[in-house]
């Protein structure tokens, strides 16, 4: 049997196995941000990671490039495939800084407004990133790649950019080192639907060049059209991962169903119950404790189709909504 969360076919660029991340609090308790997570990021695909706020999505992105706070502890394996395979969790910070971050795994950070150095122009930031990372593509071409005009934008300071431009500049920065994996944390936050679709389209274009794209987002409307695969996370666990059409339209697990139902365009029915604090998650299924309903009690992902994995689910929940 293949490993949980696996995708058949070519080996994935990034394969996450049994990843757990806990963040220490001053009073000795631990925040269970990510628990036993299994997921593959295949080359050339966009994987949409959805889930309510505070379920551990952003921590996952930080954990993958070793940027967790010093109080955090991790368990599991994150295999980065390529000519020089590497376990990202076992690699020390020097290796990550000089060989992985920006070069093989790029991160588009969450807050576009504050993630650009305020004292330097867009052009200076980009050319420095290209130099540092030994990128082959010059700064002006990177700006064109994200549909910005180098003549108009390169001399601007971050505070002179609009929100959409800032998101695209961050994407250009993440592309400076031509990474195989692109982690995007809320790249469409605060954008109008047209701009959001625009940014999502840029990410899809990056996937078509062979990159593996992880798209962490609440903006399902903008991101669903470009997603090839969808993973859904609740209370630090991924409960379902599979092809976008299956998970979006015929989810097996009842949390994805509840999450889609809570979208304005799909009925606006709130997700039942309140999320439990991540400091004391129950040992069994936190979701079914909160929402009720029968739980199979199997918390690991099990295959329901060759590339479709579900935990504690009960069969296809419904067709359409």
């Amino acid at each position, binding site marked *: 049997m293949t490993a949980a969360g696996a995708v058949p076919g070519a080996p994935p660029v990034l394969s996450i196995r049994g990843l757990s991340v806990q963040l220490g609090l001053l009073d000795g308790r631990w925040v269970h941000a990510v628990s036993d997570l299994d997921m593959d990021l295949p080359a050339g695909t966009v994987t949409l990671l959805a889930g309510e706020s505070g379920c551990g999505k952003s921590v996952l992105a930080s954990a993958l*490039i070793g*940027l967790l706070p010093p109080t955090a502890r991790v368990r599991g394996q994150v295999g980065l495939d390529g000519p020089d395979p590497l376990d990202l969790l076992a690699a020390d910070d020097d290796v990550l*800084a*000089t060989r*992985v*971050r*920006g*070069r093989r795994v*790029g*991160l588009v*950070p*969450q*807050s576009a407004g*504050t*993630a*650009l*150095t*305020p*004292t*330097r122009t867009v052009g200076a930031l980009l050319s*420095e*990133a290209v130099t*540092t*990372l030994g990128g082959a593509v010059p700064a002006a071409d990177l700006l064109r790649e994200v549909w910005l005009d180098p003549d108009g934008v390169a001399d601007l*300071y971050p*505070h*002179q950019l609009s929100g959409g431009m800032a998101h695209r500049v*961050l994407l250009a*920065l*993440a592309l*400076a*080192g031509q990474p195989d994996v692109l982690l995007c944390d809320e790249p469409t936050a605060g954008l109008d639907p047209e701009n959001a679709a625009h940014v999502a389209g840029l990410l899809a274009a990056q996937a078509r060049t062979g990159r593996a794209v992880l798209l962490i987002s609440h903006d399902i409307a903008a991101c669903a059209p470009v997603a090839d695969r969808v993973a859904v996370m609740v209370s630090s666990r991924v409960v379902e991962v599979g092809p976008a059409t299956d998970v979006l339209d015929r989810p097996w697990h009842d949390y994805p169903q509840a999450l889609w139902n809570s979208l304005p365009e799909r009925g606006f029915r709130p997700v039942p119950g309140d999320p439990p604090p991540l400091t004391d998650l129950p040992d069994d299924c936190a979701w079914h404790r909160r929402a009720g309903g029968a739980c199979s009690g199997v918390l690991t992902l099990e295959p329901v189709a060759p590339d479709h994995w579900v935990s504690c689910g009960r069969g296809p929940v419904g067709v359409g909504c």
Partner: protein
Amino acid sequence: MTSELTAVPRAIDRSRWRAPVTWRPARVPGGRRRWVLPLCVGVLVVLVLFAVVVPWVAGIDPRQTALADANQAPSWDHWFGTDQAGRDLVVRVAEGLRVSLLVAAVCAVVATVLGCVVGLTAAVVGGRTDRVLMRTVDGLNAVPHLLLGIVIAAMWKGAILAVIASIALTHWTQVARIVRAQALTVRTRDYVLATVSLGGSRRQVLVRHLLPAVAPQALLSVALLLPHAVWHESALSFLGVGLPPDRPSLGTLLEDARTRILVGQWWTLVFPSLALIATTAAVAGLSAAARDRLLPHRRTEVGVGGAA
């Protein structure tokens, strides 16, 4: 009969909201900014020229007494008047300004650089180094700094270098504290993390983020320390461990004036004070203008007024 829903609304007098027909700046820019920088540079150049050229051109020994001319009010012969020993105050103020500017500038720069180095080291290295450095700063702050300054200055009495050392070595601690705090807040900002996530090195973070972040603070501390150092030097001279009384500085001149003003000799106070105030104001204005140019969002604000 018309219902409320179909009633024709009363005509709205649109003339009250007529849009302005010409473009105007959304915010009236401070016109003041435009001449601050040239003015400050001009004042400083004049002061330095005055301090350097006057003693050299006048050809009068500032220590030469002429008791027949003692305590004269400003006149055509003595523009700033004379002191109780008949010495010309133009020459003495110029001479004093030269000594004070030298002492104050060196003290301000040395204390600021030292404070920046210690503060940045504490913030960047952290851990035990941070604790040792900051407890040293606390220890130094616990001793009254005039007392510590006296000890240092008294070891080489009358030497200008000892005065500089005694002031610089007692004033870097405040700078170190502020710089460390500033660096600590910047170190965890989103854009620093973003740089690290793009493979940025420690050196890059230091040069690109921490140094620019503390630079405005450093400039401000130079501006604040400069006049403070002048006063500190005068305090040391007053206590007899600073510069010898025959060597004029703004401090010693003001100490003289302290007694002379009581008998109505206003010129002994006014001219050295003017020199001190002009120096302080020009340096403060210069550092404010420099800070505007270090922070891009302020630079573009200035640009709106057509000044940059």
